[in-house]
């Protein structure tokens, strides 16, 4: 088994790494590219901890091989601030330091304790609100049911996402 070059876009910049076929996108991101904001939870695709966006759609980094990301665009939590939500309220070029409004809601509502589930939780919530503007708490709860949190009991996470959904609903396209 030899390592091959794989090129993809990570948070808006092109990266190329030498990667073996058995290496998951999760390990490639964390260990070869320093993207430790992507966390390892279960390695089976059931906990949501390792969520990243692939061409804008959420995927489990642990159930993708790095070689499958070739030519695609990957977004981690660190790249979220550079993405627009449904109301176009993100800011271009976010690269650490800037926060997406959804991240600010998590801070305001105390929706993070140990923080381990947070990157996956935020990206999943971001995608859901983007694709389902104006959703209520119950729909958000179902949408996040694939993301496990062992600390918070989920209430404040739902508070934060609900607040974000409400704040973007007014300016959503019909």
């Amino acid at each position: 088994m030899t390592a091959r070059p794989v090129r993809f876009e990570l948070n808006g910049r092109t990266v190329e790494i030498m990667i073996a076929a058995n290496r998951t996108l999760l390990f490639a991101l964390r260990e070869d590219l320093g993207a430790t904001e992507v966390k390892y939870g279960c390695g089976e695709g059931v906990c949501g901890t390792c969520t990243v966006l692939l061409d804008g759609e959420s995927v489990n980094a642990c159930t993708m091989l790095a070689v499958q990301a070739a030519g695609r665009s990957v977004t981690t939590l660190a790249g979220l601030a550079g993405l627009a939500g449904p109301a176009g309220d993100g800011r271009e070029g976010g690269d650490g330091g800037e926060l997406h409004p959804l991240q600010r809601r998590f801070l305001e509502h105390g929706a993070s304790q140990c923080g381990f589930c947070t990157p996956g939780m935020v990206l999943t919530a971001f995608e859901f609100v983007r694709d389902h503007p104006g959703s209520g708490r119950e729909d958000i709860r179902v949408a996040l049911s694939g993301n496990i949190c062992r600390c918070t009991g989920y209430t404040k996470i739902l508070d934060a996402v609900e607040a974000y959904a409400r704040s973007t609903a007014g300016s959503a396209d019909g």
Partner: protein
Amino acid sequence: MYASPTDHVVATSWTDAVRLLQEGGDGARILAGGQSLIPMMNLRLATPSLLVDVSGADRPGIAVEEDRVVLSALTRHADLERSAEVATHCPILAEAARWIGNVRVRHRGTIGGSLAHADPAAELPCVAVALGATIRTTGPAGERRIPAAGFFDSYFTTTLGEAEVVTAVEVPSVGAGTGCAFVELARRNGDFATVEVAAVIELDGAGRCAAARLVAGGVGERPVELMDGQDVLLGERPDERAATEAARRASAAVEPSDSVHASAGYRREMLGVFVRRAILRAAARAAP
């Protein structure tokens, strides 16, 4: 927890995939969405020596033909949820797809992969049998069309031959007089089914059942057609009385296994509950 060493090669077509599988020998496996295979590799339950990546072998399209819908094997579960063609012609596929894993699994997992993986507690094998779907394959001996009922053999085992690959799934269109429903009992969102039932019920002009398919998952080594339950419904109005009797007969006829997730007795009892629910829901959807 990570996969053993392996090689990865991209197939440019289904024929190319067959050739690569043959050349790869016993250790070669098809990689589509990888949502079953890669977790197994991470757990070292699967240790393929070669992954034949078919993600570019075809376009993940859904085509409507005269009396059926043809789905590429690469159609993702998320595509089933969103497709206007599926919603119009075979909405039970979308209803079932919503139960598969979590949103991230549905963004990668494919119908070809799910059927070939043949987990008897998975959603799509159960629905494929209930709909009378036909599975298209290609292999060293050429192309085949395999009825879904004859495709699933045992746990994670199909009747696919060596180096044979699922290429597409044909689903008969559901007419106006037919109602379908998919119901599932799972402990948590995203879990495999404790029990699941797919019901396809066709009514005649008098509101009596002209045809019925009741198929259950989670109660055997493959999707189980509930013949006794179906027999109760034929010629009858699918009302509370008929649904309850069909559920009782279906429940008595299955032989589920004990597992850490649910006992055989619990599965049997829950099958009755969900058969009745599926029948009533499907019947309500069959337009007069």
